[in-house]
């Protein structure tokens, strides 16, 4: 699974992109956030407040309870601030 990170999520983790293989128990985005938090201090810091995170699966915005299914690309980021 390709993980993409943007804005301060990217900064805290220290990279904008990584390829990871989450365990079976990780079924939705919230699970993924919990699992990512265990990977490194940077990941932990980025995932510390899930309520401040937003997600996209295969380039579509999804709520945090969205199932990962056979997602190829999952992105995590703060609420958008364009325009």
């Amino acid at each position: 699974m390709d993980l993409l990170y943007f804005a301060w999520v990217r900064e805290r983790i220290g990279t904008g992109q990584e390829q990871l293989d989450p365990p079976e128990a990780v079924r939705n985005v919230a699970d993924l956030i919990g699992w990512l938090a265990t990977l490194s201090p940077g990941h932990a810091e980025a995932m510390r407040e899930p309520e401040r995170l937003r997600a996209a699966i295969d380039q579509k915005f999804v709520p945090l309870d969205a199932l990962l299914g056979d997602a190829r690309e999952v992105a995590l980021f703060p609420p958008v601030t364009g325009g």
Partner: protein
Amino acid sequence: MIRVSVDSAPIELAVEVAALEERGAGGVATFTGVVRGDDGITALELEHYPGMTEQALIALAEDATERWSLLGVTMVHRVGVMVPGERIVFVGTAAHHRREALDACAWLIDRLKTDAPFWKRERLGDDARWVEARESDAAAAARWNVD
């Protein structure tokens, strides 16, 4: 008829408007966002999600052409580093009737704020801070749902 662009080059407003005017419409409405220099901001950085961003803007433009009778929709967003006074975003609509152009333009910029994956970071000299999303933007986008 739909033009979407995400680019680090400055936004050429005159070129964008001219293209809309050439659609043969009676009216062209535009909104341009400009980097403000108040609060000591020296530069603004715009990050985005390549691929998803363009898709999101195209989806918004297509939605707008379904809601209103439009002859042209242009959405241009700048990314990278820009300084106060420079344009961040341009939204323009062309229609036979002014109400359609005006409403679609307002709708597009409201929705762009909540539906397109951009993130702003303000630089204040050597300092930098990520801009927080505003409740008022979500409210502005939601208010169109009652139509």
